[in-house]
């Protein structure tokens, strides 16, 4: 009589799928918080196969992999195909810190014509397209929780948050969706 164990994602079965707003848990992904000086950037970019962005609030992506500028020497690298990002950086001799946060974060995909308005209920940044264009990303707040917000399309966002905050973030989004 064998017992089966199964990993349950933080937001498994949650979210909602309306005509003007969809909030769905993102598929599992591997994630890296990368800290590196400007000198190490080129080698790390080569190792990861994409250009680490140097401009605030920008991203670069290639295939299933993306690098989000978080600070002048800090990036969040996300691989939606689940590649081993730590291993990818391990061969770079230039001084850097690469910390796997795949399971610290979870993400939800927010899309639809009401997406920006609903996010604005909890996020104090200007999310209009001229201030936060497609491809922009930023660490910021959603209500009381810190998130990383990435605009993947005019009406589509990826919201990364710590898994322990995800329940709160989703509930606040649901409340905003009722009101906005």
């Amino acid at each position, binding site marked *: 009589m064998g017992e089966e164990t199964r990993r349950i994602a933080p937001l498994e079965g949650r979210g909602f799928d309306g005509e003007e707003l969809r909030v769905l848990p993102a598929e599992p992904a591997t994630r890296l918080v990368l800290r590196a000086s400007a000198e190490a950037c080129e080698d790390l970019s080569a190792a990861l196969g994409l250009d680490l962005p140097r401009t*605030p609030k920008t991203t670069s992506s290639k295939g299933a992999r993306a690098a989000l500028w*978080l*600070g002048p020497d*800090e990036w969040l690298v996300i691989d939606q195909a689940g590649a081993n990002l730590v291993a990818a950086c391990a061969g770079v001799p230039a001084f850097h810190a690469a910390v796997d946060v795949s399971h610290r974060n979870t993400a939800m995909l927010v899309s639809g014509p009401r997406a920006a308005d609903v996010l604005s209920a909890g996020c*104090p940044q200007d999310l209009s397209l001229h201030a936060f264009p497609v491809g922009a990303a*930023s*660490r*910021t*707040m959603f209500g009381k929780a810190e998130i990383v917000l990435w605009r993947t399309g005019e009406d589509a966002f990826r919201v990364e948050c710590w898994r322990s905050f995800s329940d709160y973030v989703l509930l606040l989004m649901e409340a905003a969706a009722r009101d906005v």
Partner: protein
Amino acid sequence: MLLIHCPYCQEERPELEFRHAGEAHIARPTDMAALSDADFERFFFIRSNPKGIVFERWRHIHGCARFFNAARDTVSDRFLATYRAGDPKPALDGEGA
């Protein structure tokens, strides 16, 4: 809500993303052990706390996470300038500086 210009993000961002981090330009003594108790107290505890222009450290903790410095008027709560950590105090024209 205040909008604060982050010198690293190079744009104005909402104050909810920031945290105050005490008075700026306080030089850490090079030989801490040699300080008298009175000098240590002066370095460690005593702050200028003026009514008017203050130079403060701030941290864009929920943004780029960088510390930077700001000149702020404690009467009006207006930010007069923000600048990168390590940069000298900026010249403030007008504003009673």
